[in-house]
């Protein structure tokens, strides 16, 4: 069990997922999102390779309407 913060919300994960697995669990697979882990961009090409660790802070963003 690890604890991570996703978009400001603390969450428990039963196992240390990689980024692709996390996005699948959040029903965001195939969606146009970008991911930042502890202040650093995780490129899409590395989603499967980067495994989450205890205490990670993640930001998952999309494009929305704005000026």
């Amino acid at each position, binding site marked *: 069990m690890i604890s991570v913060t996703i978009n400001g919300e603390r969450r428990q994960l039963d196992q240390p997922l990689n980024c692709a697995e996390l996005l699948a669990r959040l029903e*965001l697979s195939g969606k*146009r999102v*970008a991911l930042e882990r502890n202040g650093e961009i995780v490129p899409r090409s590395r989603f499967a390779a980067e495994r989450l660790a205890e205490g990670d802070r993640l930001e*998952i*963003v999309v494009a*929305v*309407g704005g000026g």
Partner: protein
Amino acid sequence: MKPHENLDPLVIAGKPYRSRLLIGTGKYKDFAETRAAVEASGAEIVTVAIRRTNIGQDPKQPSLLEFLPPSKYTLLPNTAGCYTADDAVRTLRLARELLDGHDLVKLEVLGDPKSLYPNVVDTLGAAKTLVAEGFKVMVYTSDDPIVARQLEEIGCVAVMPLASLIGSGMGILNPWNLGIIIEQAKIPVLVDAGVGTASDAAIAMELGCDGVLMNTAVAAAKNPVLMASAMKMAVEAGRAAFLAGRMPKKLYSGAPSSPTSGMISPAGSK
């Protein structure tokens, strides 16, 4: 000059655009209205915001980019809502990743949530970092000519001074400062913020601005799609008037438009 033949493109970072009107995509009723307004405006560059995804929402909900596909529009990710250089830089790094390496961005660092006045110190700092990282930065700033010049020196590809405060619709409050910025700049100058109605956009273009960026003036109109079309015409009219070169202003001229000779004789004379 026939603008529709694109003899007079707006060139940003080496790329020509037919339209000199850039439109924001916030504050519309729904995505269908956003798209209809963007289409009516003729804009090719549209700004988008970058925000946390709403985890747990219906994954089938449409996304903005389904209505404004990056294949059809140049999406300009913008950092509106950021109050520090660091937040703005992180937001645009995420945007570049989100948009497959797209590096044309709008930098905006605010200094105050009430006025939404830009924090030019953090704007300058963020611009330096972003330019060093290869971003093509279109930068929102105050109408201070010195700051505008420094942003150009840093390597921004366009400088975008406010006409008045964001969302105020107050129009162009300091045409003289804008004039100084336009005169000195070698990069495009776009008015960003403050336009309220079509005449404001026309005045900005008549001053010699290279373009106008707006959101609220269109989105908050009673009929946003009609206002978008009015803005398109205003920007085109203002640009044409600027290129045509207006006549000088005089208090009076003593020179009527009709010939002074050949008048019929006054009644009662021969």
